[in-house]
């Protein structure tokens, strides 16, 4: 029996031999895997990494049938830019009438009856006092002008240079402009999947950091334009054309360092300009394939809201601060949309727990210098339950913390705030540490790691508080990069000689 037992027992030597064999095979396989990746990775194409389709975050496991970060609770009502906050405030009388809402235009009466919360906000913002008091905003412009001519000079040069790059949006209605310059021959793809694959690959080649496709929900199209633009008369109803079947959403990022040093040193114009550039190239390509296309971008103008299509296409989720936050870039991107009828396989929205994270986090709302971002729950806006940013307060923040564009050395140019973007915990670098945290918080169903991550975020970085962004402090969120610190390069400004 003892002999039988001995033959059935693996000896130490046999174990080591087997382990050595397995180890050798594993090392060989790992070496092949690593070396293949080294040859194939987009990271081996310096300068063109994202243009070779590099994606940081795999969205597939998080795809769902319907977006979960907003909820349709009633009849969807299309956005009417005539009732955007700036148009509304312009239409209000200098003093609030004693008769109340009944003294306003019938259109405004109807609007405020439907949106009583916005009436409260507009009365407060137009007639109230505090950080959103216009007199207060006016008084800080001199201080901001000083910043724009000195410490912020190079940041303004950068932002304005992006802004000076010109784009020409459509000047005719869709039935004309969408069909202009189409190729004589139309390309027929093997399948909708092949078309989507090609479009995404081409978008990457044109510089898109991400490109995804969704069916266009007509409810996201503006009801009309607020002024004569893009071939529409002001107030003329936009009939959604039948060929606006698909929305191709492309994005480009804003510079990470300048975004981090908002509100003083950043700009949205890098993201605006590059995403618009990519969108124009892609729209040209779709027309060259023989399909109609129309650009809706920050620099060409829009006929639609672009955040909802981005959410529908699975870029990210609708969040407390009103923008789409993606798991890989946070809110650090600007999106553009191309509408077309090129048949393509569509992408699904994602549920990566970002909106749930937003419910607990609230950091953006806490650091907002003008309290424009709600600390409370989502509200119903035009049939959609979602968080709603007070646009008027947000705009006041732009004027206060960064100064109106008129205070720049050129009398025009950039301004803005974006502190909410800088502060969002999802706006983090692509490295092992943040990718590990992203991986955990998007998969943890208990919410424990989300709470832990938010607590750490709030306590270890030592960021300025909301008050410190306001006059007279004007703190940036983070120290600006060396290359945007004016004193490092410029000794002074002199009058530019005229002519040769």
């Amino acid at each position, binding site marked *: 029996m003892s002999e039988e037992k001995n033959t059935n027992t693996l000896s130490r030597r046999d174990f080591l031999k087997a382990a050595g064999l397995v180890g050798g095979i594993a090392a060989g396989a790992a070496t092949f895997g690593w070396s293949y990746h080294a040859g194939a990775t987009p990271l081996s194409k310096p300068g063109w990494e994202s243009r070779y389709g590099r994606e940081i975050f795999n969205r597939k496991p998080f795809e769902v049938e319907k977006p979960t970060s907003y909820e349709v609770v009633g009849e969807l009502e299309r956005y009417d830019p005539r009732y955007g906050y700036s148009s509304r405030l312009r239409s209000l009388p200098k003093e609030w009438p004693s008769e109340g809402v009944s003294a306003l235009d019938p259109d405004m009466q109807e609007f405020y009856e439907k949106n009583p919360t916005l009436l409260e906000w507009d009365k407060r913002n137009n007639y109230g006092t505090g950080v959103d008091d216009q007199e207060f905003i006016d008084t800080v412009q001199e201080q901001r002008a000083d910043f724009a001519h000195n410490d912020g000079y190079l940041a303004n040069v950068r932002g304005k240079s992006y802004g000076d790059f010109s784009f020409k949006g459509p000047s005719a209605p869709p039935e004309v402009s969408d069909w202009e310059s189409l190729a004589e021959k139309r390309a027929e793809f093997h399948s909708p999947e092949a078309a989507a694959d090609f479009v995404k690959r081409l978008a990457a080649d044109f510089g898109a950091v991400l490109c995804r496709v969704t069916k266009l929900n007509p409810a996201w199209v503006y009801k009309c334009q607020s002024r004569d633009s893009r071939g529409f008369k002001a107030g003329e109803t936009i009939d959604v054309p039948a060929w606006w079947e698909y929305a191709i959403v492309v994005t480009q990022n804003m510079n990470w360092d300048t975004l981090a040093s908002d509100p003083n040193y950043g700009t949205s114009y890098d993201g605006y300009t590059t995403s618009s550039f990519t969108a124009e190239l892609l729209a040209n390509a779709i027309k060259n394939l023989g399909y109609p296309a129309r650009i809706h971008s920050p620099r060409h103008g829009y006929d639609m809201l672009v955040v909802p299509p981005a959410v529908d296409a699975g870029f990210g989720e609708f969040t407390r601060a009103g923008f789409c936050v993606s798991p890989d870039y946070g809110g650090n991107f600007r999106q553009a949309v191309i509408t077309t009828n090129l048949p393509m396989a569509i992408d699904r929205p994602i549920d990566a727990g970002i909106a749930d994270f937003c419910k607990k986090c609230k950091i953006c709302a806490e650091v907002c210098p003008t309290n424009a971002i709600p600390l409370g729950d989502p509200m119903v806006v035009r049939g959609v339950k979602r968080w709603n940013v007070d646009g008027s307060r947000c705009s006041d923040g732009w004027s206060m913390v960064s100064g109106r564009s008129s205070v720049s050395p050129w009398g025009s140019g950039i301004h803005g705030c974006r502190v909410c973007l800088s502060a969002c915990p999802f706006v983090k670098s692509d*490295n*092992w*540490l943040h990718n590990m945290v992203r991986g955990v918080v998007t998969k943890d169903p208990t919410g424990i790691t989300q709470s832990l991550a938010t607590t750490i975020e709030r*306590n*270890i*970085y*030592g960021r300025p508080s909301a008050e410190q962004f306001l006059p007279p402090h004007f703190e940036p969120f*983070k*120290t600006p990069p060396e290359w945007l610190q004016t004193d490092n390069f410029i000794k002074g400004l002199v009058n530019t000689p005229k002519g040769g």
Partner: protein
Amino acid sequence: MSVVATMIVGAGAVLAVLGISAYAQERGWILRWWHWALVSLWGLLAWFNIAWLGTMYGEGEVRAAWIGFSVVLFFVIIFGVGIYRLLSDSGKVEVSTGAALDE
């Protein structure tokens, strides 16, 4: 991590294991598998702490680098002392004669 850094970390980890093993033998400790598991976890925590410091410094987040490092270092020290005491209390053998090993 780059390939070279991975190789250095891997080689260092192997050397550390050999060193701990020799130290344990010298002291006559009998290390069970779960002792090694605890030591590995401690090593991972220490590695994470250094990697945190480097990454945060690299991102320019000096304050976060030192706060995080200090907090984790506290646990690294506490756990390190605890694990050392656990190992030193593990069954001891007579190393000088080797008699206990032969039994």
